């Protein structure tokens, strides 16, 4: 192997990118029209654009999750927070007819949920998985309470723009997710926040002795994670023009953790990559497309998805690749 090849292989984002490329090639071979892009009604149109649009809420939630995990935390309540934010936004826009008010209310709901999680972890000292389990369970009930147990249908056309609109020919939701990730990345590099998060994630005790104030930072990360879930809730409710307390963002927390892992962030904390997380979200959405284009029967859909994820994870595992290499050389 040449040294350039080895360098490329050891790039942190090489394997997530390779996995995504592989999935796209697989889809293109199954469905010849998969890569086609059309310009219709003033915007791009095609399977790839669909994937971008659908992956947006997941990418947003996973971005918040990345930072929480990087600082040795976990937030399994994001799916329920999506439902709360969706219900709040839908109710607000139906009641007042104001898009701005709906957005503010939904984001505030997400922020409050994140703050609650953060306080349980930082001030009460609960284990992150338990602290966020509370809202994971209670959150759907709260969403039910907001919607009055009904699925709220949204008849206000401007609201549709969040999940279905286009900006400069590309899906608005995808642009929004990209913008959030870019701004976040800028914040992490322009301030020492990235350094502090990694220090807390790698060695919390040493970070404390070095004078890093982990508590306010951790609180802020959970709050931000709640905010991204709120944003995702707005997009999802807009996309389906309704708020369903039971199904909005269902199991999204697991997809988000998966996207974070696929992107090369260590679940043990410390090492993280926002770009990797974005690619991870795209991998998961492309996987879903693959399942549709293969025509997998709905009843075995989940089993099939799990099998695909298993293969993807094996590909990404350095240990697995090493053992394959030793087998091959023997």
């Amino acid at each position: 192997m040449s040294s350039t090849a080895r360098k490329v292989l050891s790039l942190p984002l090489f394997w997530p990118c390779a996995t995504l490329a592989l999935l796209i090639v697989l889809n293109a071979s199954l469905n010849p029209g998969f890569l086609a892009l059309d310009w219709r009604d003033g915007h791009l149109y095609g399977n790839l654009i669909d994937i971008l649009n659908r992956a947006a809420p997941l990418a947003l939630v996973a971005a918040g999750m990345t930072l929480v995990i990087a600082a040795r935390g976990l937030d399994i309540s994001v799916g329920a927070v999506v439902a709360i934010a969706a219900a709040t936004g839908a109710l607000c826009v139906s009641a007042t007819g104001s898009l701005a008010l709906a957005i503010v209310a939904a984001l505030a709901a997400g922020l409050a949920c994140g703050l609650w999680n953060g306080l349980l972890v930082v001030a009460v000292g609960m284990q992150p998985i338990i602290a966020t389990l509370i809202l994971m369970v209670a959150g759907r009930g709260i969403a039910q309470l907001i919607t009055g147990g009904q699925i709220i249908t949204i008849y206000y056309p401007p609201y549709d723009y969040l999940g279905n609109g286009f900006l400069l020919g590309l899906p608005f939701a995808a642009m929004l997710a990209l913008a959030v990730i870019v701004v976040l990345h800028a914040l992490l590099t322009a301030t020492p926040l990235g350094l502090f998060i990694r220090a807390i994630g790698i060695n919390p005790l040493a970070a404390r002795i070095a004078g890093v104030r982990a508590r306010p930072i951790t609180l802020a990360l959970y709050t931000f994670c709640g905010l991204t879930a709120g944003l995702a809730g707005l997009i999802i409710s807009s996309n389906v023009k309704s708020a369903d307390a039971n199904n909005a963002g269902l199991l999204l927390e697991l997809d988000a953790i998966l996207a974070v892992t696929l992107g090369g962030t260590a679940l043990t904390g410390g090492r993280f990559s926002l770009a990797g997380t974005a690619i991870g979200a795209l991998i998961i959405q492309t996987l879903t497309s693959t399942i549709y284009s293969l025509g997998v029967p709905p009843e075995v859909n989940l089993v099939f998805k799990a099998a695909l994820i298993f293969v993807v994870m094996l590909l990404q595992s350095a240990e697995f690749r090493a053992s394959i290499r030793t087998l091959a050389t023997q």
Partner: protein
Amino acid sequence: MLLQARGIVHAYAGKPALDGVDFALRAGEIHALMGQNGAGKSTLIKVLTGAEVLQRGSILLDGQRIRPATNREAQRLGISTVYQEVNLCGNLSVAENIFAGRQPLRRWTRGGGIDWSALNQRARTLLASLDVDIDVRRELGACPVALQQMVAIARAIDISARVLILDEPTSSLDSDEVEKLFTAMRRLRESGMAILFVTHFLDQVYAVSDRITVLRNGRLVGDYPAAQLDHAALVAAMVGRKVSTQSAAVEKESAARADETRALPVMSTHDLARRGSVASVNLEIRPGEILGLAGLLGSGRTEVARLLFGLDRADAGEIRVSGQPVALDDPAQAIAHTIAFCPEERKTEGIVEDLSIRDNIVLTLQARMGLWRKLPDSERIELTNRLAQMLDIRAASLDAPIGDLSGGNQQKCLIARALATRPRLLILDEPTRGIDVAGKQEIMNQLTQFAAQGMALLFISAEVDELLRVSTRIVVMRDRRQVGTLPGGCTEDQVYALIAAPAEALH
């Protein structure tokens, strides 16, 4: 002679830890095993209890050769150990812990299963024999550490009641609890048990021991009746030099007088104390001064540093920085008062392993600057280059992870991290531990230079010769108390004399 070890030789990966050690334990005696760090106490215990397989030499129990290969086998032969850290299950009851794995069972005619009433009754009787009166159904984790220790002992003596080995049982107990433990030990001695007792507290040795065996550098120094070995002789045996207790007290006073005339201290403490950690510490550290903190392992040296840096909260007394009383509840507060700290546990408390050398060095400075002011890249590189050059940090690249460096270079990085904040007071806990001789000298030369530039330093070390080389004054700790202050230029003998002076002589 109940238990006898002869000519024990034991090596770890070719490095000898025990070199021809003889040891004898009689029935009905409490026998203290003493020695400094690395003297071979733990290895001897491990060999006797089967945690390490005997390499050379012989062990005799009741005149029979034994060769325990596991802890379990040693227990079956009658040798039980209670370790420093209580290793029982906090989520089980007291009685369950005592009989875990050996629960009395009901007969099948009565349904089988554990006979709870017999279990609890036997636990009560056993604990009563140690003069412990508690509800044996209580969850162990909810009991004070002292009680947990008693439960561990109860379990050990119930499994096999001939030889009991207690490895630093008192290190987490306060004085009342220690007294209770000693009462129980005396009771067991009367019943004919042989007890081997390891501790770092000199006064405790005399309170209960009948005999004392001293090890040094893996060799036996001697086996003495406790009544015939005074404090000074014991310390002399441990450290390998003669100690006199006479001169110390005089020097202590003259040093104290010389202090009063100098500049305002950077930091001073007044009766600073924390229960179960240190009692009543009074320190003054002035600019340009290296204050040495001496004492044996477990004397409270590190605990003082933790209080001064806000890592532990004091529950009595006062800390003043530049004459102003301050509250230090968090290291970040100490850092804001321009205090810097290099911890003893380099790996777990010092370095952030996967971060680069540069990031590790600027971490504290950046944390003090806050979240909204980032150290500009050019300054970051200039600062780390300068510090790396000054401290001679040898690394292929300063952008490499700090985990790649040798221990000595990691230590220099931690000193660099402290210096980057331009501290007025630098606290160093065992900065030379695990570093080769040349590296040690380098670090000590640097400390002297910092002091010459007006920095105040608190230098903690177990190696008295190091302290003497650089300190302008030396505070001596023993049994978690400050027992005296000596001027710079005093002798090792004087330091050891204070360490060894019997408690009464100091009051």
